[in-house]
């Protein structure tokens, strides 16, 4: 009996990592609470959480916490969870630890959708904006991400087998195409739109408002809620599509659900916070080392750790050069890109599959 299972109060058989996984999930819940409280305190202005909770603060500090930091922390949690879950689901779907919405062009496709809305929202896309209201931007990003994911799956998967090299190269091509169209739109943009695009494109939680949470929150919450129902199918899919079907999984229907979920989570995140990379690849990979690849535990653990890591990255981004702040996308790339290279070096064989 290992120390882990003693702590979890349950005797685990050899090779059964579920007790360890449950314990890790409990610990990650605790971590998220701590990080969230820390985030509410940290920033250019010095406000203590305790004094906020105790209600013994000035009106100015109350505004800083409730109107600036709280929406930012909530948005960080939503987006961190969404990015990590969409990474984990995509990796399971493609049976490949290197699949990530940012790397294979899905974020770029979602970005194209968002840019279309920002630039053409007042003219050509006006009716769509009138119809969708505050949801126009996340919906457009979702549609862009969905089209890219479906194209990618069509190109990279043949008879249930995904070629890793094809997937990564097709992702580069799709990303470049989305980039080219986005470039055309940027060229058409006026000065005010250009400023919006620049702030958005750097990837940041800085513009967090309650409106953004209302716009992106429901879409992200839906995709997070869908995740537990995908765990069994993703586990079976690890054996390949044919074997998953033999185990009783409705594979084709499940793949459609998974693709829509990934596109929704990625699209909503990209719409409100721009390009924040590498969370989707780093978080599930770390957790597979810790608790194994069983998606029943990997998916919730990814959401929790993704949320915590993004909040930490955000805390770094707004304290390291205080009183101004660094876009969070720079922080996640600075940490995530070397980590990605490390995965590649450890598993050079992956690309030969």
């Amino acid at each position, binding site marked *: 009996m290992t120390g882990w299972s003693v702590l979890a109060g349950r005797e685990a058989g*050899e*090779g059964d990592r579920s007790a360890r996984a449950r314990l890790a999930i409990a610990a990650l819940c605790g971590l998220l609470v701590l990080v969230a409280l820390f985030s509410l305190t940290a920033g250019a202005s010095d406000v203590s959480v305790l004094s906020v909770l105790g209600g013994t603060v000035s009106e100015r500090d109350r505004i800083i916490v409730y109107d600036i930091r709280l929406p930012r922390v909530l948005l960080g949690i939503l987006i961190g969870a969404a990015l990590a879950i969409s990474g984990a689901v995509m990796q399971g779907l493609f049976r490949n630890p290197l699949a990530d919405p940012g790397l294979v062009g899905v974020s770029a496709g979602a970005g194209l959708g968002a840019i279309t809305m920002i630039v053409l929202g007042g003219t050509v896309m006006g009716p769509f904006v009138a119809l969708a209201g505050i949801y126009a931007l996340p919906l457009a990003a979702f549609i862009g991400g969905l089209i890219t994911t479906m194209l990618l799956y069509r190109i990279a998967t043949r008879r249930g087998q995904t070629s890793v090299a094809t997937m990564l190269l097709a992702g580069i091509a799709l990303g470049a195409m989305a980039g080219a169209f986005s470039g055309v739109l940027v060229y058409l943009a006026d000065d005010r739109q250009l400023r919006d695009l620049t702030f958005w494109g750097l990837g940041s939680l800085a513009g967090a408002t309650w409106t953004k949470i209302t716009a992106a929150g429901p879409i992200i919450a839906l995709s997070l809620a869908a995740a537990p129902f995908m765990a069994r199918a993703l586990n079976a899919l690890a054996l390949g599509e044919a074997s998953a079907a033999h185990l009783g999984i409705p594979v084709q229907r499940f793949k459609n659900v998974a693709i829509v979920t990934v596109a929704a989570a990625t699209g909503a995140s990209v719409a409100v916070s721009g390009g924040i990379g590498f969370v989707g690849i780093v978080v599930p990979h770390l957790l597979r080392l810790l608790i194994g690849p069983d998606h029943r535990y990997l998916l919730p653990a990814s959401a929790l750790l993704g949320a915590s890591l993004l909040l930490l990255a955000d805390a770094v981004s707004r304290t390291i050069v205080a009183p101004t702040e660094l876009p969070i996308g720079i922080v996640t790339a600075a940490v995530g890109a070397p980590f990605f290279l490390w995965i590649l070096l450890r598993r050079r064989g992956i690309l030969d599959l």
Partner: protein
Amino acid sequence: MIEVRNLSVSIGRKRIISGISFDAAAGNVTAIVGPNGSGKTTLLKALSGDLPYEGEVHINGAEISSLKPWQTASLRAVLPQATTLSFPFTVREIVSLGLSNGRTGALAGEEGRLPERALARVDLDGFAGRLYQELSGGEQQRVQLARVLCQVWSPVLAGVPRYLFLDEPVSSLDIKHQLIIMDIARDFAARGGGVIAILHDLNLTAMFADRVLVMHRGRMAAAGSPAEVLEDGLISRVFECRLRVGAVPPGTMPFVLPQSAGI
């Protein structure tokens, strides 16, 4: 009972198998033999629901294309030729996937112990904690068989026979484990289930199969008991090399002696 009537499969414009008809009864081990490229795996894939087909495939009286995935999964389990994984699952985690359809047929309290019992059946005692990716090819194949056994642990569930489809179950195994796996197939049939297995070894086929289907160039060249089917002329013609069939001294079990690659 599995009933196949006038089954044909085309991939693109190419017809891979055509006009296949046979019955595979519960209680029997049915072997599919034939040279490489004769359509054995295509036939098994069509029976497993992996490929679109023309004709009819009935399992216990129901056309398989009319059943939902979980229904077919509760009637038959399929062992593929080889399975590679991209994620570091333990052996127990892989074998436990066989429980996920929820119709193993084991008693309620017993289900948690099935992975260990299945691993013991395939001679992998003590492997539950190992990482699948670090095992040899033969060991991986036996882990997959343990998973498949869990899925249809009781050969008969609620009075209905269930089936094992095995695609070259012994190809990567040493001789001891070939015998262990064939014993498992025999035992499954003896307890009322049905087994359809693609085999390359004609002597194992003679020892363990009740019926033999001989595939040749996408058609069924012969079907019958090993004693009926394994005769010099037929198998030499099908395998396109010279083979002699003898008989094991005391009984009637045929054995096949390779002679030369030419006819």
